[in-house]
């Protein structure tokens, strides 16, 4: 069986972390291919829905990358993201989802090495955690909808 390869969605700010990823490329740093990057202008643009959407569509982890505190290209968009992030983490926990699946890192344009380290580390963590779809018992599909009831109805199964 193929070993589990987690999928990571990176939501990266245009001015810091996206550039760090560019720099990692220019410096030919090799890191886990599990990361797939979406560019936004500022981490403050990121909506919790984007994160939930990523999980719902098969991501095993979401990495938000923004500028270091005080460095935001838009003054303090990264802090607005931080507020949402902290609250969202709490919510995920209530959902029974390991909060390590959502990670926020401040990575500046020059910190390609940090990006590499974070991605490799995060990939490793997610490998240990296993696929998102299998994690929280709340999201375990069972017999619902149950086939027995349908047959007693004498109805055709609907898609």
């Amino acid at each position, binding site marked *: 069986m193929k070993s589990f390869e987690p999928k990571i969605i990176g939501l990266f700010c245009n001015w810091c972390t996206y550039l760090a990823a560019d720099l990692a490329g220019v410096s030919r740093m090799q890191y886990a291919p599990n990361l797939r990057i979406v560019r936004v202008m500022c981490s403050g643009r990121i909506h*919790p829905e984007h994160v939930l959407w990523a999980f719902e569509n098969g991501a095993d982890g979401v990495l938000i990358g923004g500028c270091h505190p005080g460095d935001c290209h838009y003054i303090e968009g990264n802090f607005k993201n*931080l*507020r*949402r992030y*902290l609250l*969202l983490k709490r919510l995920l926990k*209530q959902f029974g*989802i390991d909060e390590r699946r959502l990670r926020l890192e401040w990575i500046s344009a020059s910190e390609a090495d940090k990006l590499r380290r974070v991605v490799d580390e995060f990939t490793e963590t997610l490998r240990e955690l296993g696929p998102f779809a299998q994690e929280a018992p709340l*999201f375990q*599909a069972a017999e619902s909808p149950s086939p027995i009831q349908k047959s007693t109805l004498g109805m055709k199964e609907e898609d």
Partner: protein
Amino acid sequence: MAKKKVGFYWCASCGGCEEAVVDLAEDLLAALEQIEIVFWPVAMDFKREDVEKMADGEIFATFINGAVRLSEQEEIVHLLRRKSQVIVAFGACSHMGGIPGLANGVQREQILDYYYHSGPTVETNGSVEPDPGITKKEHGFDLPEFYRHVRALDQVIDVDYYIPGCAPPPAIVKGALAQLLAEEPPPPGTVLASSHALCHECELNETKPAEGIRIKEFKRPHQVEKIDPNTCLLVQGLVCLGPVTRGGCGALCVKGRMPCTGCFGPLDGVQDFGAAALSFVASIIDSNDPHEIERILDEGIPDPLGTFYLYSLPKSLLFQKLLGRNGKKVAESRPRKEKVEA
């Protein structure tokens, strides 16, 4: 003109929505001039066989309240879907899962265990638990299946319209009826209430400061000694979900100086009510210090899930793959996998 046939049914709900129908009072009598009720188990003696006997599409519209958790409920709503031209999800539970939907935040086994074994008021000999496997033919009934999850109505069958609210206020119900019976009914999928958020109709909206809202401390109603009746509740630090909640109720709760908890659900375009609520609430926290933010959250929002998904947990994005989602919105957000000719 012949009266249009109308049905009512309830699934997992508290009965408040049935009450809401009665709350129409004399308006109900006026409505009865246009409609004929052919199915309403809570009020009139109809049996399932009566419905089964009807032709497909014979009923003009069926109003279903309550969420779906039992196999019995699923059976009946499928049946009603076939027999009805229009299905209206009536009230927050069938709209989004409602309060019963909060049960999705707990595992089914925990619920059964609490109710039949470990709950503080339960006296048990250790064996009493409803078992759908037991069929007591001699009594003429069998037990329905208790599903693992609670679902909103449109996660079980196609729904044409939604009447929001917990419960829907009479004005909304009346307006909705009028729209349904009009010559040109609204497009399918419409939520029959305002298209704006609650703030839009709230009398306290104008008390918000022009420079916007910044919150240093969230409070829960019981923590506030005296709510200022003349200032926006959100501005006072109460977690009022008015900005993210569909209007139409006339800001009833806020009039009673209680913060909106979101029973009318999200506005068009918002996929996940809880996420949207969470995002705006977090955004207005007035702090950049992670420790301070954590403290503000600790003190003011101890239960984010219960706060933001009070009525809409089954409709959360995270449950969508599992429980299905509103077909219309899915089509909108997914590009079609069609080939076009080169």
